[in-house]
C-alpha cells in the first residue's frame, strides 16, 4: 500500500469492510465474465461471503449487461438496492451507471469513454483498459477481453484484494494452464501498479481476509448443483430441449456424468442423454423412460412446461414417475427470458386438463438444488407421479456460495416395483392400479419383466384396477379418489418446511425458493427495527400440516413471492380457507430477484395500515 492510501485509510472514519456490492457494466459477448468471476472468486478465497447476480440481455453479443457481486461479512446473499461500487465499461449505459452509484460510493470507468462525470458525492477512478490491453500484446480480437482484466487490477488495488487469491482464481478458471493465467494476471498486476501510481483512495470500501464464514462452502450455480444432484440420484435418462435459463442443467449432467458414472467393469453406459427436437418430445421420451423403469428427468422453463402440459397430465393419470426441472424465467409467454421469477407455481401445481395435482419441490439454495436433485427421483418413484423442481434463473444461473454438497443420507427408494421374483411369489391377482396398502400407491411392473403376469397396457384413457379400459362411472370415481389418497400419502415423503424464529414474533413470513436469502436478511433488519417476525419456508407442495400451524399461531402472516398474482398465497387460500383472514400477500415481479430492503419496506407499510 502506498503511503498516501494508508493515510487516507486511517483518516476514513466510515471504513466499510467486506460489506458492499460491486456492479460491473459491460457489453455482453465482450468477455467480461472471466474478470467478474475472478473478482468473485478471489473475494471468496479471502473468506468473505459473496454472491453474484448477472443481469444479461436476451441476445448473444453487443448489448448491455451488468454483473453484481455482493460481499457481505454477515453472509447475506440477496440482491441489494444500493450500488456502492460501479464499474462502467459500456458507453451505452454510462450515464445510467453513473447515476446508479450510491452517494458516497465509488465509480470506476474505462478511461477511453470520455464522458462527463459531474457528480461530486462519489469517488471516481479511471481504468486505462484500452492502453493496458494494447500494451499486453494480446491479439486484437482479444483486446476487449484483456481490457476487462484492467478493471480487476485497478479495483484490486483500491479495495485491497489479495493478489495471491486473484492468482488462485485465475488458476482455477484456466484449469492451471499457465499461458492464459500469466497473460491475465500480467494485465491485472499491470493495472494494479498503474492504479498505485496514479490513483488516490477516495472511498471507504475495503476487503480484508476473514475467517469462519466460508470455510465449509463451495461456489456453484444451482443448475450445476441440480445436475450433480441428479447424477448422485442415479439419473438414467435425460431428455431435454435447450431454453434459457434451463439449458445449463442438462449440459452439466452431460459434462459431469461420464467421469462420475462410467466404470471400467461395465460394458456400457448407465445413462442416456438425448437432446430432443422440442419439449413435447423431451417430456414424451422422459415419460416413456419413466414408464420403462428409468430414473428420468427433463429441464426446461415456462414455455417448455406449457408445451408439456398434455404429457404431464398423461403421466399424472397413468402414474409414471418423472422429474421435471423448471428453471423459472419471467412469463407469461416468451416474456423476459433472462430475468428471474416465481411465476410458474400455480401452473406446476395444477397443470393439465381435468382434475390434477402435482408434487413440487422448491429449492432455495444451490445446496438444496443438489439435495432435491437426488431426492426428486426417490419421491417420483415412490409416489409414481411427476415431480416438479421449481428453481429460477437467479438460483440456477448465478454463481452462489453454498455449503458443500451433502452425500445422500438415504438409500435410493425405487418405490413399489415388482420384478419376476415378486410375481412368482404372488398368490393374488395383481392389478396395476389396485390399492393394496390403502395408501393410494399401487404396485407397478416394468417393461422387460419377463414374468407373463406382469404385462399391462398403459393408457391415458379410463382404466380400472387392472389397467383395463373402462368407461364405467364407478371405476372412474374410485380411481380418481385413490389418486387423492395417494397425494395425501405423498406428504410423508416430502421435505418439511423450515422455520426460523425471532423472539417475541407475533407476525410471520412465508416464502419459498430463492427468495430465502432476502427474507432471512429482512428478518434481521425487522428485528433491528423491533418488528420481530418468524419465517417459514415451504420446501414442497402439497403442503404439510406444519404450515397450517404456523399460520394459526401468528396474528398476521405475510406470503412473499416473486410473481404478480400471489400464487402461493392463492394456493394457501385454497388449502386453508379458514385461515384466509390472517394471510397477506406481498408480491414483486419485475424480473429482479428480491431484496431485503423491499421486503422490509412493504411489510412495514402493511403493518402500519
Amino acid at each position: 500500500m502506498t503511503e498516501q492510501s494508508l493515510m487516507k485509510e486511517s483518516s476514513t472514519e466510515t471504513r466499510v469492510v467486506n460489506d458492499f456490492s460491486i456492479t460491473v457494466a459491460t457489453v455482453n459477448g465482450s468477455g467480461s465474465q472471466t474478470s467478474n468471476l475472478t473478482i468473485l472468486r478471489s473475494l471468496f478465497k479471502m473468506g468473505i461471503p459473496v454472491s453474484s447476480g448477472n443481469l444479461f440481455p436476451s441476445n448473444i453479443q453487443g448489448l448491455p449487461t451488468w454483473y453484481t457481486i455482493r460481499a457481505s461479512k454477515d453472509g447475506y446473499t440477496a440482491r441489494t438496492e444500493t450500488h456502492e461500487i460501479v464499474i462502467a465499461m459500456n458507453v451505452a449505459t454510462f450515464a445510467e451507471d453513473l447515476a446508479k452509484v450510491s452517494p458516497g460510493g465509488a465509480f470506476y470507468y474505462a478511461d477511453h469513454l470520455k464522458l462527463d462525470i459531474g457528480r461530486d458525492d462519489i469517488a471516481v477512478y479511471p481504468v486505462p483498459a484500452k492502453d493496458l490491453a494494447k500494451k499486453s500484446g494480446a491479439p486484437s480480437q482479444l483486446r476487449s477481453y484483456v481490457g476487462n482484466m484492467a478493471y480487476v487490477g485497478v479495483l484490486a488495488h483500491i479495495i485491497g484484494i489479495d493478489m495471491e487469491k486473484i492468482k488462485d482464481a485465475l488458476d482455477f478458471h484456466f484449469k492451471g494452464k499457465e499461458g492464459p493465467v500469466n497473460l491475465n494476471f500480467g494485465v491485472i498486476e499491470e493495472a494494479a501498479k498503474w492504479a498505485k501510481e496514479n490513483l488516490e483512495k477516495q472511498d471507504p470500501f475495503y476487503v480484508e481476509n476473514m475467517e469462519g464464514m466460508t470455510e465449509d462452502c463451495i461456489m456453484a450455480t444451482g443448475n450445476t448443483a441440480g445436475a450433480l444432484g441428479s447424477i448422485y440420484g442415479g439419473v438414467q435418462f435425460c431428455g431435454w430441449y435447450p431454453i434459457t435459463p434451463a439449458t445449463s442443467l442438462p449440459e452439466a449432467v452431460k459434462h459431469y456424468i461420464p467421469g462420475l458414472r462410467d466404470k471400467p467393469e461395465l460394458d456400457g453406459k448407465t445413462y442416456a442423454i438425448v437432446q430432443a427436437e422440442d419439449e413435447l418430445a423431451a417430456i414424451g421420451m422422459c415419460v416413456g423412460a419413466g414408464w420403462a423403469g428409468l430414473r428420468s428427468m427433463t429441464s426446461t422453463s415456462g414455455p417448455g412446461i406449457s408445451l408439456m402440459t398434455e404429457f404431464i397430465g398423461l403421466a399424472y393419470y397413468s402414474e409414471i414417475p418423472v422429474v421435471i426441472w423448471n428453471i423459472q424465467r419471467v412469463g407469461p409467454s416468451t416474456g423476459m427470458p433472462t430475468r428471474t421469477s416465481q411465476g410458474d407455481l400455480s401452473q406446476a401445481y395444477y397443470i393439465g386438463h381435468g382434475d390434477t395435482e402435482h408434487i413440487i419441490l422448491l429449492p432455495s439454495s444451490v445446496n438444496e438444488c443438489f439435495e432435491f436433485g437426488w431426492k426428486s427421483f426417490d419421491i417420483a418413484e415412490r409416489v409414481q407421479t411427476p415431480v416438479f423442481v421449481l428453481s429460477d434463473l437467479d438460483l440456477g444461473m448465478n454463481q452462489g456460495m453454498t455449503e458443500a454438497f451433502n452425500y445422500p443420507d438415504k438409500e435410493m427408494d425405487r418405490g413399489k416395483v415388482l420384478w419376476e421374483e415378486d410375481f412368482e411369489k404372488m398368490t393374488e391377482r395383481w392389478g396395476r392400479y389396485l390399492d393394496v396398502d390403502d395408501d393410494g400407491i399401487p404396485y407397478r411392473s416394468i417393461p422387460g419383466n419377463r414374468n407373463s403376469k406382469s404385462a399391462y397396457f398403459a393408457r391415458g384413457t379410463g382404466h380400472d384396477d387392472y389397467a383395463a379400459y373402462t368407461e364405467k362411472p364407478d371405476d372412474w370415481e374410485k380411481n380418481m379418489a385413490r389418486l387423492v389418497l395417494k397425494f395425501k400419502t405423498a406428504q410423508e415423503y416430502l421435505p418439511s418446511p423450515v422455520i426460523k424464529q425471532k423472539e417475541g414474533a407475533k407476525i410471520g413470513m412465508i416464502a419459498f425458493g430463492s427468495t430465502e436469502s432476502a427474507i432471512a436478511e429482512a428478518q434481521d433488519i425487522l428485528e433491528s427495527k423491533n418488528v420481530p417476525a418468524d419465517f417459514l419456508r415451504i420446501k414442497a407442495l402439497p403442503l404439510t400440516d406444519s404450515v397450517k400451524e404456523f399460520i394459526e399461531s401468528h396474528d398476521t402472516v405475510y406470503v412473499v413471492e416473486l410473481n404478480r398474482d400471489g400464487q402461493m398465497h392463492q394456493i394457501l387460500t385454497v388449502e386453508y380457507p379458514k385461515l384466509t383472514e390472517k394471510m397477506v400477500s406481498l408480491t414483486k415481479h419485475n424480473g429482479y430477484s428480491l431484496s431485503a430492503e423491499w421486503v422490509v419496506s412493504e411489510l412495514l407499510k402493511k403493518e402500519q395500515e
Partner: protein
Amino acid sequence: MAKVNQIGLEKSEYRGAPTTLCAGCGHNSISNQIIATAYELNLVPEDIVKFSGIGCSSKSPTYFLGRSFGFNSLHGRMPSVATGAMFGDQSLEAIAVSGDGDTANIGMGQFKHIMRRNVPMVYIVENNGVYGLTKGQFSATAEKGLSLKSQGNNPYMSVDIVMEALTSKATFVARSFAGDASQVKELIKAAISHNGTAILDIISPCVTFNDQAGSHHSYEWTKQHREMLHDFSYVPFTEEIHIDEQQAGEVQTVRMHDGSQVVLKKLERDYDPTDRFKAMQVLQQANEENILLTGLIYVEEDAPSLMDLHQLPKDKALNRFEEDDLRPSKESLQMISSLMF
C-alpha cells in the same frame, strides 16, 4: 391339442382382447398378421413391447399380444414415448402402431425425428387416409381432391409416408396393403429383424368412412392399382436359402442384422432396395402413373441404431441397474466439491 410353435406356444397366446373396431376394418387384418408373425417367428411375447398413439389404429395393440407390455400414449406422440421407453430394456423388440392422422398430421414432427435417430422399432402406419375414430375427416395422406360426403373436397396436397421416410433417411422402408395378408406378414418379419426404425406404410381401408371405390385408400382401388416390386419372402436365420441356378439372376437376397435374410424375386421390375435414391425415383414414377408400389422399398442394414449410438450395456437392461452402479461414491463427491470454487 392345439398346435404350438417351436417355443411351445399356441397361436392364441399371441392374441389380445377382442377387437372393438368395425367389422372389415383393415386394421384388424394387420393385427392378425402381427399375431401370425410373432407365432411363426417363435417370439416370446414378454420380449415384445407395443406402442401406439391415439386413433382406431392406435387402439389395435390392445387386440394383439396380450402378454406383452404396451403403451397407448398420446395422439401423435408415440415416437417420443417409444424412444424413451426403448432405453429401459434394450433387449426388447418394439412393435408400434400408428394411424395416418397420428403420424402425418399431429405426429409429423416426431415421425420425422424418430427416423433421424434410428430408434430400433417396427413402426406400422395403418394408413386409411382419414381419421377413423373421430368419424372420417381427411388426414394428410388423403389424396388431393378426394371427395367425402360429410367432408366435401380435400383441397390440400397429400403426404406420402414412404417418400417422407426415404427423405428422412429411414433405414427400412416398406409398403403393403392390409388386404394382402402374406405380404404384410413377411414384411413385418423382416422389419422385426431390422436393427433400427422400420417404417411400414400399410394401406388399411376404413370401411366406415373411406372405402368408396375411387378412394386411394379403398380396398377396390388398392387392389386394382397395386403392383408388387418383387416377390418377397423372409427366411429366418435358422433356415438355409435354396436358390435355383436358373433363378439366380432373378433373385436378390438381403442379409438382415440378426442373420435372417430376405429374398426378393424379380417380377416386372429390376429393383434394388438398397439404393435409396433409386427408390425415390421409382416411387415418384409410380405415383405419376397412379400405381401403388408395395414391397420392401429400402433397407440399410449397417447403420447403428439409437441404442448403439448411446452405447448401452449389452448384457444387462438399463432398467435393471441399481444403486451400486447408479450412485457415485462419497469420495467422488468430495472430489467434485473441491472443484467447485
